């Protein structure tokens, strides 16, 4: 193949890639919710994150374990959540998407890996920051619950209001 023909082939290939990617992304639409068995640890984490996405803090609070709820009242949790929502969630914070992995047993504790992707900046400065967090789970009387004091997915010490 002559050098000019190979150059034209590269241009055609990249233009095709751009067109295909645009079409695929537009057709695929937004990410679809993951599907988990209703009584699974993964479903509990999904319910918790879904409640946060809806800004439904009491529902999110209900996904925490009895032990965590005993140490933090709903009022304190709501206050901490309001602070977080003001600065850390879109539209003020970076855009995020979350993927829930399969639960596993880590040294006797059930953990659910949650991968968070955060989109920062724009143009050349745009980066996707990925981090995987392992959410500890416990089976309470009312099903699988998150056994850690979390504000969204950040472990947080919530100072009770005196």
């Amino acid at each position, binding site marked *: 193949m002559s050098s000019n023909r190979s150059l034209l082939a590269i241009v055609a290939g*990249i233009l095709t890639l751009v067109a295909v990617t645009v079409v695929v992304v537009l057709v695929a639409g937004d990410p679809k919710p993951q599907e988990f068995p209703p009584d699974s640890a993964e479903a509990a984490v999904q319910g918790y994150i879904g409640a946060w996405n809806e800004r439904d803090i009491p529902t999110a609070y209900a996904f925490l374990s009895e032990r965590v709820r005993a140490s933090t009242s709903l009022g304190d949790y709501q206050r901490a959540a309001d602070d977080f929502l003001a600065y850390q969630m879109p539209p003020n914070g970076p855009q995020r998407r979350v993927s829930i992995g399969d639960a596993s047993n880590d040294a006797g504790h059930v953990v659910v890996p949650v991968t968070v992707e955060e*989109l920062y900046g724009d143009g*050349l400065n745009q980066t996707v920051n990925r981090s995987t967090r392992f959410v500890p789970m416990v089976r309470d009387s009312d099903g699988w619950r998150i056994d850690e004091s979390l504000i969204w997915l950040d472990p947080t010490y919530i100072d009770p209001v005196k």
Partner: protein
Amino acid sequence: MQTVRRLYVYLLSGITLGFLVYGLITLVEVALSALGVGGGGIGGRREQLSLAAALIGVGLPVWAIHWWFAERGLDPNRPNAEEERSSTVRALYLTVVMIVLLSVGAFAARDLVREFVLGFLPRPQDDFYGYSSGSAARSLATLVVTGAAWGYHVAIRRRDLARGPLEGAAAWLPRVYVYGATLTGLMITLQAFGDLARYAGETLWPISGTDYTGDYRSYAFAESLSLLAVWTIGWIGHWWYAGRLLIAAGWRASSERAARLRLAFFVSVILAGAFSVIRLTAEAVRAVLIPVLDATDAIGSNLGATDLVRAVAVALVSAVPWAVAWWLHQRWMHEEALEADDPSREAVAARLDLHSVALVGLAFAAVGTGWLVGLLIDVALGGSRTVGGSGFWRAELANFVPFTLIGLGVWVWRWWPIQARHQADPAAEAASTIRRSFLLVILAASVITSLGSLAYVLYRLFGSLLGANIGGGILELSMPLGALVAAGAVALYHGLALRRDLALRAASEAEQPARPVEERSRRSLVLIGPPDGDSDAALGALREALPPGFTLDE
């Protein structure tokens, strides 16, 4: 021995000059504050005076003694004066001192101008973004003292140059200062212009739903305007000086015209210009694509028509001075190459121009392509199994489609003539150091990217096989795979080009006849004599004095 002595003398001169300059700045600052100039914000003047006296008391005598030693070496009556004047250590010393003094002085000038501009604007809170009122006396003192010290060292350098030709490091090291200052000044000027365009845009078309304070706007505007004012002077002053050297009498003009650093300066501006024009144009296209692709959710604000107009206008207006700088420096480089005594200079300039812009275009196209491939993998292989993230893919698409398309366009625009040159004269292009460097730089960058991405993909693969608890899944793999595909393709394409060039060079060398033995020992000499001298007689005398086997041809 002389080098060790010089290292000692100039190192001590430099360190003690620092003591002296700092002491003088403190002294002048106290004096200005006492006179009520610059806000008079200094507390504890006695402590400041004590510090100044101590620094000057230590710095001045030690600097004076060492600098006197350094300068004494240049006394025309001393046997090693020429060696001292053309020494690398002296050139390095003058270069470093001028760079440091210019930088410190420019910072002080910026602070001073910013203070002046802020006087006409709504006053920011004290210590806003590190700003503190009452620093004008310090800035003025720094500017005066560093300006005087810089002027003195410039005069010393000019005196050294006036005494005769300088070659090697003695010539190019101070040239690093001249072109480095010109380049820095130009870059900061253009960047500050872009920032001012942004503030103007934000004023004309306010940002929807933001809470930018007047403090932020005043400070940022004053900062950019002061940078623009100070570095425009710095840039034009140094560029004017470099231009004057080109038309100077004697050896300096020819030395400057042939300087590789001057060529490197042009190439640096072309690279920076191409980079910024592509980046800013991509920003404008991105602003249009975000609403078109319905990616407004992902960027976290509800864009209005004014946001769109502002984003496009600011990006394009900011790109214009970069484009002008790119075009002008490209033109000047070609014009100077055409006027050069060396006929190969024009080919060198053309290659540098084409390859540097192609490199920038390729970098953008490769980054964009890598992201798009990663995005495609993400969508196709399970990245859709997520919670939340509305418009996430569309935002990435809006970002990286412009990079890909504009980068590709620029790369093809420059790579096409490179290919045409290669087809017209394959041997000459294959032998070009510029082309080889271009291919090797791309090969190195793409191989490093490929290896990094491959290592990450294998880490995830082995982790899954060994049951390691590393989470992630396809989300963690899509972008490394995209980078691997794009970098691998770039490496393959340019690696093959490099291989073809190597084969061409080998064939070309094999075709060249062996040089005759006598040519290897051929030397060209220049005979210089008095105006009324008999050069024929001198040549005859030289021929008679030649050892057996030697000839002297005209």
